[in-house]
């Protein structure tokens, strides 16, 4: 193979930069059109309910089961460490703060990207490859309004709700392990938790985090489906990209949000 000249390398670098900027621009225009574009669809609420069912309700099982196990594990681990310092009552505080601030929003968003995000990408990608999206356009229905917008809104609404359900189930699982199994006194378990958890700082910040994650994960999933190559290989690549990009975005954003919310500056 011929050795690439310096100019050629610079050209390739420039092209990849332009491609990246173009993807960001396309996805931004796509999002604005889908959410705020003119011309509503009749029966839009019915479409939203249907998507809420497939995105939100169908993800409940995995969220509840993993939330309970994570809460139980946190409680076990926290107890064995805190018992060394004779302060095993603080296990309630530890479980609640960990779940509300970090694990609730983050783990829910990661599970959501795997469970619902990949499904959204594959579904929309398949619609594109079988030319259902172009047919919709042919009969005068905007696919952004009919297909994309309900899925975006369904993701935005369900992920924060799922994250709160995750935290509640996790705290319940943790309290079950700590109180009924390890024998932490029930009164001090709940009192310690209530003394240290503040509604405005911890609960609301957790909800803000999950709203941001919902926005990012759903946006990535839906855009990858809409923008994929309309072949079976392209769909599989887009699905992989959805899970990888969404997980990385969630973890990176989590650090930034945590630094802004809980860092002391």
């Amino acid at each position, binding site marked *: 193979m011929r050795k690439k000249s310096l100019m050629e390398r610079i050209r390739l670098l420039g092209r990849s930069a332009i491609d990246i900027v173009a993807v960001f621009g396309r996805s931004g225009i796509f999002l604005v059109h889908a959410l705020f574009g003119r011309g509503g669809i009749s029966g839009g609420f019915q479409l939203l309910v249907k998507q809420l069912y497939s995105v939100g*309700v169908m993800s*409940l099982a995995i969220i509840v089961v993993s939330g309970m196990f994570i809460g139980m594990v946190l409680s076990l681990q926290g107890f064995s460490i805190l018992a060394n310092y004779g302060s095993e009552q603080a296990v309630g505080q530890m479980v609640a703060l960990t779940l509300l601030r970090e694990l609730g929003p983050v783990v829910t968003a990661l599970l959501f990207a795997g469970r619902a995000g990949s499904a959204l990408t594959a579904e929309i990608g398949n619609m594109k490859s079988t030319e259902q999206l172009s047919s919709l356009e042919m009969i005068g229905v905007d696919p952004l309004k009919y297909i994309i917008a309900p899925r975006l809104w369904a993701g935005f609404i369900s992920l924060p709700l*799922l994250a*709160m359900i995750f935290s509640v189930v996790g705290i319940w699982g943790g309290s079950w392990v700590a109180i009924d199994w390890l024998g932490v006194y029930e009164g001090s378990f709940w009192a310690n*938790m209530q*003394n240290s*958890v503040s*509604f405005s700082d911890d609960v609301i910040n957790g909800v803000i985090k999950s709203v941001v994650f919902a926005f990012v994960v759903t946006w990535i999933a839906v855009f990858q489906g809409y923008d994929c190559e309309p072949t079976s290989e392209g769909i599989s690549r887009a699905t992989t990209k959805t899970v990888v990009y969404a997980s990385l975005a969630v973890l990176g954003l989590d650090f930034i949000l945590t630094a802004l919310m809980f860092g002391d500056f």
Partner: protein
Amino acid sequence: MQNRTIETGVGLFLLAGILALLLLALRVSGLSASAATDSYKLYANFDNIAGLTVRAKVSMAGVTIGRVTAIDLDRDTFTGRVTMEVQKKVDNLPIDSTASILTAGLLGEKYVGISVGGDDGLLKDGSTIHDTQSSLVLEDLIGKFLLNTVSKDAK
């Protein structure tokens, strides 16, 4: 029929989410609807508040009767000024009550303990507790102990 199950499922899902938020608010963070109205403010100046934090307990006879809401430095006297919110139903604290900073357990958190005085006058909203006892600083204590042994040896 299919449509109805979907709608019921979504309705239950939304209700579960709202219920989760309520549980987090009431059960986990202990938020009560009328927290702001039924309390009054007391101030106390301490020489050293080391370790006391905002939202620490204010207790009397081991019963929690309020919370620390602010800690700042009094510029004139160079003392730590602690603002406390005490429940309205505990409105019969004598004016010469003592406030001291105590520790729950060996490694536990600091809290403000109030012991009752004997005066007839009562503390009102905005009044200051003058008789205070500072936080125990371990280094000071060790310093005093060392000084004591040294002076004993000199004898």
